[in-house]
């Protein structure tokens, strides 16, 4: 039986009737129409559906929508502010970290969660953080460069 829940996504609260077994990914994509979050495996193996929930990165395919009730959810669509791209988005574009772009939203959300917690990660820490996000195009090289560049832009090293 469907339950009415409220979901706060990118600052907007939505009332949605959901089946208890529906995932957050399904609801974000099919009911809220936010298709920027990608589906790759439905089993938490690829990271394409990564969103930030109460400040923590989660695979939205592994979170039941009912468990996301009243949580604060940030998706890729909520990252740019007033038409201004987030430094991570800028860096992914500039450094060539985007090829097909299908892993990009999940990758950027994972990177944001990392930089929120650790503004100046080492390269090894960046690689560790995104080790659950598969990319088949780039070999990760330019993605890692982009995250490090965004970190530098957001939190310049002290002289």
């Amino acid at each position, binding site marked *: 039986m469907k339950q009415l829940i409220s979901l706060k996504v990118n600052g907007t609260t939505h009332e949605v009737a959901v*089946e208890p077994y529906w995932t957050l990914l399904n609801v974000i994509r099919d009911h809220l129409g*936010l*298709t*920027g*979050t*990608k*589906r*790759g*495996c*439905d*089993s938490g*193996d*690829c990271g*394409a559906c990564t969103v930030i929930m109460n400040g923590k990165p989660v695979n939205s395919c592994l979170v039941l929508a009912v468990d996301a009730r009243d949580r604060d959810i940030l*998706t*890729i*669509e909520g*990252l*740019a502010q007033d038409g201004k*791209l987030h430094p991570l*988005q*800028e860096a*992914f*574009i*500039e450094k*060539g970290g*985007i*090829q*097909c*772009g*299908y*892993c*990009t*939203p999940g990758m*950027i959300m994972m990177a944001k969660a990392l930089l929120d917690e650790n503004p100046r990660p080492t390269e090894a820490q*960046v*690689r*560790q953080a*995104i*080790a*659950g*996000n*598969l*990319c*088949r*195009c*780039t*070999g*990760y*090289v*330019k*993605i*890692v460069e982009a995250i490090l560049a965004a970190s530098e832009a957001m939190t310049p090293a002290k002289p």
Partner: protein
Amino acid sequence: MTATSLIGQSIVKPDARDKALGRTQYGVDLKPRDALVAKVLRSPHPHARILRMDVSKARQLPGVVAVVTAEDTPAVHYGRWVHDRTVFARDKVRHVGEPVAAVAAVDEDTAEEALDLISVEYEQIPEVVDPQSAMAPGAPLVHEDMASYGPSTVRRGGQGNILDQTVISAGDVEKALAQCDVVQRQSYQAPATHHGTIQTHEAVASVDATGKVTLWSATKSAFAVRQTVCLALGLPMSRLRLIVTAMGGDFGARGTAVIEPIVVLLALKTHRPVALTLTRQEEFTGTSYREPAYMELEVGAKKDGTLLAVRGKYTIDTGAYHDSVGHLRPNTAMLVGPYRVPNFHLEGFVVYTNNVPRGHVRAPRAPYPIFAIESLIDAVADKLGMDPVEMRLKNAVQNGDTVPIGAVVEHVGFTQTLQAVSAHLEKEGKPQAPNQAWGVAAGQWSIHPIESGGPTSAAYVKVNEDGTAVLVTGVADQGAGQHALMAQIVAEVLSIPYDAVSLVAADTDLTPYEQATGGSRTTYRAGTTVRLAAEDARRQLISLASERLKVAGADLGMEGGKVFSREAPEVSVTLAALGAASLGSRGGPIMGSSNAGRAELMEAMAKAHGTVDGPIYCCHAAQVEVDPETGQVKVLKYFVAQDVGRALNPKLVEAQIQGGVVFGLGGALTEAVAEQQGHVLNANLLDYRQPVATSVPPIEMTLIEEPSQFGPWGAKGVGEPPTVPVGAAIANAIFRAVGARVTTLPLTPDRVVQALKNRP
């Protein structure tokens, strides 16, 4: 080119911004809200007769709008290269995952429930799952009526389960081997591997009141897929429009019709939009991917390292249906590698089995024969006490050589790649730590002779009234930046800023024909076509300017958005003025067509007929560390030297090489589809291990630019070759580090440990 040339500039891909914002629409992202959801019922058996099927209960389920089976399709066989399949299994199933029925329902839950309500009674029959058994006399036949399959142009063995076979030979191998100072022989094996795109296959179809179907598909071969769907469903091409959506990776996955016939059939049945997304599990049983291969190889050389003879056999398990291009000869010829070998005898076989169908994965069919020859050449060099790069340099194919397929290679940059590796290894020095070493391997791609036909590709360039331009091309962009490159070419020819060119692409009703974005052909072939279209637009602009300025066309130049007299540059007219003036002019609005300059191109190609113009050669070096206790291999550093002809956009070239190497690292170290009696045991992205960010070494590279004749500004293809030699480079590095030869891919710890035990 002029000082302001865009060629060689790393322009940022224009699609990146939308992708970073999450706005790009892939596959079902653009489905209408009222779209029905489709699901496919698939065979649970590798080989079975269908005795009875009952779909009545599924049809009665509320919310189900259509259930379709083989009875709803014309009785035709279709396929991309061999017409060996039907949309749904008819009398028997030939592999686990073969579609037997499909449903369209109001939502996913209902569609899944409907699948459970379809009852199929099977009678299992013996399966064949390896090519050796399948080739044995009396083996169960996968296809009883193979001889009737079209088209007749595809060469087929036509016996038993052998679809295709070939023999290529030269000289006298027996005699030559007897004269060799060193002869090494070895068998090699490699598994099925998956393209592993992060987006699974997705498509949406919709039908209007006149019966016209629009199909949105994440495919790289819009026209080929349209042709296949029309053949499978008996539709005239005028009734099917295919629009390509953004693709979440390709790597060979998106070149053939996979789900499109089913989606279109359901849309025609229901008169409603229908969307289908394959599950990750279905990606492993309902698509086609790299074929397992078996290589037997014997190589002989003189004391000084001169290669004298190669004898080889290459056997491919093509699964239940053949989704690979029919290039068995060049693939078999890869068994001699990029070397001058005067005597060879090579046999190739393509064999049907009851495994999941095989098709294309990045650099189709190249990595495995290269794994074999590059491993064995390395063993010969070791036996002779020769430096492995030196050995390769001594035998490297050169300009003007006739290669085993019988064509002459031109514009060969192989030696330069070997020299670059040699220089890099010198700079790096030998690793001092124990169990560490560098290994090298060479690779090749696009060893196809120029054929009598021209490029199967066309393009238009329209010049707007303000002097900006629109490129209309069939080229689909899988993310490598093909659209950016095509626009870059137009901007260069018209001497306008890059962002003054926009692009309409990959729509079968709107854009001209394009073969496919694959085989590293897009920059080389489609790029040439786009250049012709831009040059035609340029000619039209010059001609119009000549009328207006009263200056002969030959005396006019074009730069910075203007046409001007070379003698008196102040006599000029802007492209904007020309674009506007063209509207009512005698020649009409400016619309350049690639067909205009085609005759000249084809004349030049006819002169070069039978030669290989854009052969791509590369050499890789990998530094590994092997743990002799556990067999764990760690790749510490990686170096690539590749001949790219001309790097039109160096950043995009670099990105292709980095991505290609890491793709190859997966195949070298971890990736294998685990198959047992036709069943896939690891149909998910946890157990099928693709490389992750922590498993990737630093990658350095040197680009060699040995220009091709027919690629734009000398460019050659880039994307496929970097995947080709990786397995051999790592295997050779393992040998140099710990003395163990692993001859089966992937090079897993257990195989390394076993090879260490087998050390002589």
